[in-house]
C-alpha cells in the first residue's frame, strides 16, 4: 500500500516546509496562551461586571430605602385614620340615644343610659376586634375604656372626647405596627418568599412602623384633620437613613469587618438611601403640583420609586446597557484562543503547508514530469497516491500532535484547570483543528490528484481553502462570540460558506455536544475527497 522509497522522497522534499510551519504555529500558540494568560486580559471584563453588580446592589438598597420610607409615612397615615375612625363611637352613642328617644318618647336616663352605653361599647369594640389580634390589648379592655369614656361624656363632652383620643393614641403603637407587619408578612407569603425572609420583613416592618406610630403619637394633634404627610417627611427620611446605616453597620460587623470599614460602608449606604428617599419625595411633589391634586395615585408612587431607584444600567440607553453587560460577560480567552487562534490564525500556516504540500506531492510532479521516474518503476499508481496521502496526513498529524503538546504545556504554565480553558477543552480544540485540516487536506489532495496542472490544482484546492478562511474571518464579525456592540449579524452569512464553521468552537467551550456531529461531517468530507482523489488518479491520463 505504501512505498517506502517514495515516502522517504516526500519527507526529504517537504521537511523544511513542515518544520518552519510547525515551529511558527507552536510559537504563536504558546505566546497566545502564556502571554495573554499572564496579562490578565479579563480585567476590563471583571471591572465591567463589578460596575453592573454594584449598580444592581445600589438599586436594591435604594428600593429598600424607598419602601421603608413609604412604610414610615403610611404608618403615620394609618394611625391618623384609625384615630379619626374611633371618634365615630360618640356619633354612634348619640344616634343610639335618639333612637331610644323616638321609640319611647323619653330621654334615656339612669340604668337605660348605662345599658345603651354598654351596647355601643360592645358594638364598637367588636368592630375593632380584628385590629387587636396579636396584641396584649383585649377586646374587654377596649370595651371598658369606651364605657368609661361614654359615662364621662354625659357630664363633659369635650373633655371626654380628648381623654378618649389620648387613650386611643396611647394604644395605637400597640395596634398599628402589628397590623401593618402582618399585612406585609401576608404579602410576602403570597409572593412565595421563604420563611426566613418573611420573618425578616415582619421584624423590619414592625420596627419601622412602631417608630412611625410613636412619632405620630408624639405629634399630639388635637384633631385628626390636622394631620399632614409633610410633617413626617423629614422624620421619615432621617429615620430610614439611620435605619439603613445601622442595618449595614451591624451586618458588616457580624461579617467580621473592621470598625472603620463598617462605618465607611454604612455611611455610603446612608448617602444612597438619602438620595433615594429625597428623589422619591421630590417626584411625588412634582406629581402633586402637576396634577393639582392632594392625593398621589399608586401608579405615580410606583413611577416615582422607579425613578428614585434607577441604577447605571437604567440610566444609559437600553442597547448600550445590553452591549456593556454582554461585554462584561464575554470571555476574552475563549474568543482569542478558540475563535481566533484555533479557527483562523492557527489554521493559516497549516493551510499553507497543506495547499503547497498536497500540490507538490502529485499535481506538481505530474506537471513537471518528474512523476515519470516513479511511475516507470514497478510501482502502482494507487500505491503512489496512497503513499503521498499518507505523507500528507501523517505530517499534518505530527504537526498537530506537537501543537497539542505545546498547548497543554502552555495551559499548565498558565494555571492548569483553573485557567479559562481547561485541559479537556484544549485537547478538543486541537482535535477539532486537526479534523478541519484533515477535511481540507483531503480536498487539496483530491484537487492535486485530479488536475495535471499545478495552476489548476493550486487555484481550486488552495483558492477554495483560502476562501473558506477569509469567510471565517468575515463571519467572525457576525458570530455570537463577538459582543453585540461589534457584531453585524448579516456577516454571519459568511459562516455558511466556510467549511471551518463545522469546527464548532463555541459548542466545545460551552460544554454542549453539538460539535460531535459536525466533527463527523468533517471526517466524512475528508474521507470522501480522499477516495475520489485516489480513484481518479488511478484511472486518469498522465502526460508524462
Amino acid at each position, binding site marked *: 500500500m505504501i*512505498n*517506502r*522509497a*517514495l515516502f*522517504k*522522497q516526500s519527507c*526529504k*522534499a*517537504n521537511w523544511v516546509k513542515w518544520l518552519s510551519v510547525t515551529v511558527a504555529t507552536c510559537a504563536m500558540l504558546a505566546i497566545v496562551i502564556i502571554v495573554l494568560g499572564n496579562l490578565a486580559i479579563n480585567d476590563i471584563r471583571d471591572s465591567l461586571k463589578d460596575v453592573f453588580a454594584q449598580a444592581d446592589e445600589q438599586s436594591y438598597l435604594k428600593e429598600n430605602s424607598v419602601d421603608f420610607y413609604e412604610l414610615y409615612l403610611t404608618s403615620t397615615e394609618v394611625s391618623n385614620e384609625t384615630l379619626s375612625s374611633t371618634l365615630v363611637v360618640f356619633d354612634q352613642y348619640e344616634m343610639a340615644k335618639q333612637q331610644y328617644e323616638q321609640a319611647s318618647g323619653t330621654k334615656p336616663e339612669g340604668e337605660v343610659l348605662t345599658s345603651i352605653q354598654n351596647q355601643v361599647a360592645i358594638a364598637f369594640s367588636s368592630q375593632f376586634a380584628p385590629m387587636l389580634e396579636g396584641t396584649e390589648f383585649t377586646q374587654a379592655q377596649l370595651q371598658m375604656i369606651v364605657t368609661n369614656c361614654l359615662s364621662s361624656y354625659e357630664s363633659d363632652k369635650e373633655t371626654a372626647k380628648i381623654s378618649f383620643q389620648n387613650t386611643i393614641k396611647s394604644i395605637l403603637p400597640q395596634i398599628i405596627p402589628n397590623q401593618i407587619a402582618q399585612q406585609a408578612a401576608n404579602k410576602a407569603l403570597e409572593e412565595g418568599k421563604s420563611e426566613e425572609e418573611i420573618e425578616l420583613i415582619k421584624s423590619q416592618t414592625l420596627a419601622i412602623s412602631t417608630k412611625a406610630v410613636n412619632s405620630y403619637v408624639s405629634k399630639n394633634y388635637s384633631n385628626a384633620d390636622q394631620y399632614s404627610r409633610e410633617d413626617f417627611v423629614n422624620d421619615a427620611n432621617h429615620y430610614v437613613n439611620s435605619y439603613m446605616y445601622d442595618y449595614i453597620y451591624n451586618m458588616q460587623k457580624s461579617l467580621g469587618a473592621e470598625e472603620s470599614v463598617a462605618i465607611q460602608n454604612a455611611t455610603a449606604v446612608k448617602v444612597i438611601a438619602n438620595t433615594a428617599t429625597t428623589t422619591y419625595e421630590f417626584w411625588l411633589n412634582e406629581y402633586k403640583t402637576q396634577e393639582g391634586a392632594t392625593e398621589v395615585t399608586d401608579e405615580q408612587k410606583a413611577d416615582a420609586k422607579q425613578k428614585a431607584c434607577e441604577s447605571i444600567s437604567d440610566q444609559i440607553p437600553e442597547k448600550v446597557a445590553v452591549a456593556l453587560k454582554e461585554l462584561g460577560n464575554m470571555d476574552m480567552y475563549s474568543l482569542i484562543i478558540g475563535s481566533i487562534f484555533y479557527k483562523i490564525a492557527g489554521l493559516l500556516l497549516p493551510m499553507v503547508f497543506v495547499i503547497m504540500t498536497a500540490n*507538490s506531492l502529485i499535481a506538481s*510532479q505530474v506537471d*513537471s*514530469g*518528474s512523476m*515519470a*521516474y*516513479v*511511475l*516507470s*518503476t*514497478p*510501482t*502502482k*499508481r494507487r500505491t503512489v497516491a496512497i503513499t503521498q496521502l499518507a505523507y500528507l496526513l501523517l505530517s499534518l498529524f505530527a504537526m498537530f500532535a506537537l501543537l497539542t503538546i505545546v498547548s497543554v504545556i502552555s495551559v499548565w504554565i498558565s494555571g492548569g484547570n483553573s485557567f479559562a480553558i481547561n485541559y479537556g477543552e484544549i485537547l478538543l480544540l486541537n482535535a477539532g483543528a486537526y479534523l478541519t485540516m484533515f477535511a481540507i487536506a483531503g480536498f487539496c489532495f483530491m484537487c492535486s490528484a485530479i488536475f495535471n496542472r499545478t495552476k489548476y490544482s493550486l487555484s481550486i484546492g488552495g483558492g477554495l481553502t483560502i476562501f473558506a478562511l477569509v469567510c471565517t474571518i468575515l463571519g467572525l464579525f457576525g458570530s455570537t462570540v463577538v459582543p453585540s456592540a461589534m457584531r453585524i449579524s448579516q456577516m454571519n452569512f459568511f459562516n455558511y460558506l466556510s467549511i471551518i464553521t463545522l469546527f464548532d468552537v463555541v459548542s466545545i467551550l460551552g460544554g454542549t455536544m453539538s460539535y460531535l456531529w459536525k466533527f463527523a461531517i468533517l471526517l466524512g468530507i475528508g474521507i470522501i475527497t480522499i477516495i475520489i482523489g485516489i480513484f481518479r488518479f488511478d*484511472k486518469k*491520463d*498522465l*502526460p*508524462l
Partner: protein
Amino acid sequence: MSDIIQVEHLTKDYGNGRGIVDISFSVKKGEVFGFVGTNGSGKTTTIRHIMGFLKPEKGKVCLLGLDSWEDSCKIKQFVEYIPGEIAFPDLRTGTEFLKNQAELLSLNDMTYANQLISKLQLDTSANLKRMSKGMKQKTAIVAALMADKEILILDEPTTGLDPLMRETFLEIIKEEKNKGKTILMSSQLFDELEQTCDRVALILNGKIVDIADIHKLKNPTSRMYKIEFKHEKDYLNFKLKKFKIVRDQPQYNQVTVKISLAKLNYLFNILQNYNVKFISEVKQNLEKYFKEVLASQIKLQAKQNKQSIKMLKDNEKIEGGNYDK
C-alpha cells in the same frame, strides 16, 4: 513472442486535429525502432500510450503480450524509460536521486549504475537543480538504464545536447542495442536515427506516413550519379542513351541518372566516349527519403485540395448560373 512491442490501431483524439489516429506497428526483439516527426505530430502521445500513462481511445498497446494500460505496473518490470522533459523529483543531489530510484526499482546491485556513471563521467554529487542540461540528461540515462531491463523507451533523448554529448549518448544506445535490448526512440533529427535504428517511422499529423528500413536505405539495389558534360553535344547525345534520368539541368549540361548496380559497368563504358567534366554519386539518406515521401504526400494533398477547390468552383458556377436565370 518475437514482437516485443505491438501497437494496434491506436487512436487518441485531443480535438483540433491534435492526437493520433490509427497507429499500428510492431517492434521485434532486439530491434531499434525510431520515430520521427515534427513537433506535435504525435510521437510523445504514442510513447505515453506504450508506457501505460494514457488510456487508448481505440486500439491497444501490448508489451511482451501484456496490455500496457491494464497491466501498466507489470510492464514496468521490463521497461526502462527516459522521458522527454527532464524534471527530477525534489531531491538535493544526483546521488540522492539515484539511490532513491534504485530503491523504487528494488535494485540492490549498483555495479552497472557505477559503470554507467564512470562511462558518462558524471559527477552525481552535484545539486540536482543546478545541473546543466547535459548532466541532467546523463543522470536521467543512468536512472533509466541501471536496472538493465529488456526494453528501452526514449522520448527525444538528445534535444538540447551538444554534439559531443550526443555522440556519447548514441554510443550508449548502440551498446544497449548490442546487448540485445529492444529499443524505441523518438527524435527530430534524421541522422541520429539513421545511425542507431533498424527501422524508422515517420509520423505526420498523428498518422504514420511511412516506415523506412534503414538497412535497405543504406544498401540500395540502385544508385544515382550526377554527371556534367563539357560540351552540350555530349550532353544531348547521352540523353539519347535511354538511361533513367531523375533530374535534368540543361543550363549546366547536367543529368542525374538512376542505375541498378548490375548496369554500372555499362554506364562507365558509355561514358568513356564522352567528355565528362565530373561525375559524383548522389547518396540516398533518410532525410532525403522522407522528404520525397513528404513531397509526394503534399502533392497528393494538393491534388486532393485542387479537386475539392474545383468541386467548390463548379458548385459556385452552378449556383451562379441559377442566380443569373
